[in-house]
């Protein structure tokens, strides 16, 4: 299975080769070599272990984690072979950041990179996004990870309990939406005067809620209101559960009825509103952006970008007053909707936690009351609720642990926390030395390895990866399942 993924990755690498040839750049050969290596290795892994039969839950965890880890490793080859990065840790970090749609980069000068490499970076986002959609909507619900079992009933497509036919069906439907949105965004960009290459790259990065840009200044590099608003809209859409998009596309406007969607939208609007007012009133506003419209646009852009964990930057938010920065800081933990390409804790879990907390308070008024936590009309089972609470606690613990390691590796507390948080939440930029205008290139190899691991853990909803570290996972399993 894992080998099969690498064959696909190898095939995908041929696209940057073509891009490189089109732009008549010298690295086409190196890119082709990377592709060939991946194809051969993938084939070698795949062919002797031809997949047959059903996947068990345990195998499911292992396959998902290993496929992602291996993909990041092979995805690092183009960076190494073309020589733009010499450290394997940095190359893997860049690839992992791509495939987990984090968007943190080790490159200080992006604009000096060849088109082939730039395209590969964006493509890793886009492919990662595709993988995530299928993962969070079709695979993880069956593995019962961190409350994702809530989605079992919500996925479009046929309903058999078996994993494989369902994944195939669901994947096709949702990818259709994903590709459609990407195409739409690219067209709108081009219509707004952006070059085709930049348009495609940024669309890939937006829909995947990634955040790799082809400009050093990220979105601030485009001095166009139109392009900023297009980006805001599509970042927002990418943070919405894709099965909602699918259902809307088939004619049922289900957004308003979805409680998670409402909270997601409220959070963004309230945060943006606060940011706009505070930024405008405080006057300490980034130069070059004019007036109320600029304040509103940047507030919207940044709150959508951080909430959806995209990580595009339209203004250097580190220039904002501390209060505004703390609003963004809080948004790091919310994340996109469950079932989107966004990372973070996910709005659904936040929603359920808030409701559970409300119930705990209400319980003091009515000690004998039986209070269920529900989303819409569905009551959440207690074990699922416990699973979700466990997830959030693990998430926060990992965030702290990551920051601790970063601290020991010599970073200042703010940078350490921000780096850990931005990696685990798959956001990208953070604060301090990894802020809006900074990059991760200065970090030591151990730091990059740990952050790469956090990206993977955050992306795969924590449990999936951590399970592999539990000894029982590897004990002999029963002969039937």
């Amino acid at each position: 299975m894992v080998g099969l993924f690498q064959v696909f990755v190898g095939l995908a690498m041929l696209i940057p080769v073509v891009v490189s040839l089109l732009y008549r750049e010298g690295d086409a050969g190196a890119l082709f070599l990377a592709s060939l290596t991946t194809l051969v290795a993938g084939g070698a892994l795949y062919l002797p272990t031809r997949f047959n039969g059903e996947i068990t839950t345990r195998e499911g965890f292992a396959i998902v984690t290993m496929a992602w880890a291996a993909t990041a490793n092979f995805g690092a080859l183009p960076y190494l072979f073309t020589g733009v990065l010499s450290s394997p840790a940095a190359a893997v970090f860049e690839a992992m950041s791509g495939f987990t749609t984090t968007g943190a980069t080790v490159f200080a000068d992006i604009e000096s990179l060849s088109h082939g490499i730039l395209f590969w970076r964006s493509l890793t986002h886009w492919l990662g996004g595709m993988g995530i959609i299928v993962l969070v909507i079709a695979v993880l619900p069956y593995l019962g990870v961190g409350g994702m079992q809530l989605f079992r009933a919500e996925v479009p497509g046929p309903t058999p309990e078996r994993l494989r036919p369902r994944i195939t069906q669901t994947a096709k439907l949702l990818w259709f939406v994903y590709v459609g949105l990407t195409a739409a965004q690219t067209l709108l960009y081009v219509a707004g005067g952006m070059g085709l290459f930049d348009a495609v790259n940024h669309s890939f990065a937006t829909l995947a809620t990634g955040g790799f840009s082809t400009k050093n200044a990220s979105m601030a590099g485009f001095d166009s209101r139109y392009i900023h608003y297009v980006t805001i809209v599509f970042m927002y859409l990418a943070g919405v559960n894709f099965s909602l998009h699918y259902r809307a596309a088939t004619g049922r406007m289900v957004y308003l009825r979805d409680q998670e969607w409402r909270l997601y939208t409220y959070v963004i609007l309230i945060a943006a509103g606060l940011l706009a007012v505070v930024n405008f009133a405080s006057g300490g506003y980034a130069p070059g952006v004019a007036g109320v419209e600029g304040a509103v646009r940047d507030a919207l852009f940044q709150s959508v970008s951080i909430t959806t964990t995209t990580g595009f930057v339209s203004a250097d938010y580190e220039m904002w007053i501390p209060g505004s920065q703390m609003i963004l800081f809080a948004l790091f933990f919310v994340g996109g909707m469950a079932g989107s390409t966004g990372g973070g804790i996910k709005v659904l879990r936040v929603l359920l936690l808030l409701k559970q907390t409300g119930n705990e308070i209400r319980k003091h008024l009515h000690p004998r009351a039986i209070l269920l936590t529900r989303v819409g009309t569905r009551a959440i089972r207690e074990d699922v609720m416990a699973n979700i609470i466990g997830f959030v606690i693990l998430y926060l613990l990992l965030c702290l642990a990551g920051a601790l390691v970063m601290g020991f590796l010599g970073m200042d507390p703010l940078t350490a926390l921000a780096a850990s948080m931005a990696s685990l939440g798959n956001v990208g930029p953070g604060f301090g030395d990894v802020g809006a205008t900074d990059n991760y290139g200065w970090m030591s190899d151990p730091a990059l390895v740990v952050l790469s691991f956090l990206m993977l853990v955050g992306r795969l909803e924590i449990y999936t990866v951590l399970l592999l570290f539990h000894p029982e996972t590897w004990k002999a399993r029963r002969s039937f399942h």
Partner: protein
Amino acid sequence: MGRYPWIPPPDIPVPSLDLIAGNATLMPPAAMSAASLRRDSDRETRFMKVLIVGAGEVGYHLAQRLSEENHDVVLIDSNPERVEFAAQQLDVITLLGNGASLPVLEEGGVREAAMLLAVTSLDEVNLVACLAAKRLDVGLTVARISNPEYYQRGSVLSREHMGIDLMINPERECAWETFQLLQSAAATDVAQFAGGRVQLIGLRVKDGAPVAGRSLLELAERYTDKHYVTAAIVRNDVTRIPRGHDRIEAGDLLYVLAPTSEIVGIPPLAGYERFHLKRVMIAGGSSEGEYLAELLEQHHVECTILDHDRRRCVELADRLPRSLVLHADATDLELLEMEGVSGIDGYVSATGHDETNLLSSLLAKSVGAKKVVSLIHKFEYLHLVPRVGIDASVSPRMSTVNAILRYVRRGRVMTVASLMGIHAEAIEFRVDEGSRIAGKTLRDVHFPKDGIVGSIIRNDEIIIPRGDDEILPGDEVIVFALPGAIPEVEKLFD
């Protein structure tokens, strides 16, 4: 299909409160029969052959009422004791055997029967009996069904698929009645007409009430904006249909007809505070309790429901998102008080045990619940309710009997409400082309002295009539009459 309200077939009115509304409980056979008998014999009434499957309380009472109306009743049950008891007490033919078996049904004369009422406590037996009867071309079949899965739209057994004319859910009927009772704290009786658009309520006039000591004419001048008809006054156990010069005294029991939209304005006239149902507590998570809670949720009434079984509580909490579900005992007074039972608008005890219900209701009443309704299963307990000070009682079986009778009697006479506190009946007639009364004004027809036309429903309009109002074919007319005047009234509508 929404779970509530149960939608009756289009040709029968919405369930109205019949016999057991308010304090009215056990109906002594004589109270009803005099009027019904005459009514049936005056018309060219077809005496029907009726098969009743199940001689439990529902079947027994149906048999009693229908035999009093001179129908040929065959009562079938597989329990020898029940059959024996019914044979001794009732003027019906009894048959021992399984009501779902064809030979037994044939022995009971199913081929000549006009109607089959399957009212055992087993849904499946009732269904099979009705299906068999339909095969044998029985005109009207009624099944008592408790499990919603059997009658919901889309069910294989649903009405449209199987041709069963009426499926009655006792628990649901009962919840509906309770809801009606709760809505008016003052009423001792509530009955509905014209599909719920007109209501009749019984009210005891309080000392110092605005209407006390005044004649009807004075009141009519004083309250020109209110639309109502004082249909009857009960004083010292004597029922009279009042005339304009009659005075209302404190302590009188008034029966007032008014459009449902204006009924809330009536109790204040009799000295009651304006009542608005805001908060209800249901003690007991029985099916009746759950249906009632659903109804209350639909009407945005704040609802608390409690049950002693934790698993049932979780189930209720799942199905009733807007109600507060408590895991508690119905007789735990301390908890009830903590949850604010004193001063609550409505309290309904709805556990499966009558004794618990009575006790729970008494506790709630003692700490000041405004309107207390108790669910009572055993008919013997029903008469206890008014005596011990509980405001009203409901019984799923009695609700079923009433609902079935209402359905069975439909025709030109649409709804008959027999009221316990009063020796009179409210009858809803439909006026035909050939009716003697059609096309005449009320003044011209010499309406009997002991009867009164309460309302005329013409298309969607509700008319509170005066002497110069005309009655037209197609009208529905609600008449309130003493038993002696009923034959005369019926002639007018023939």
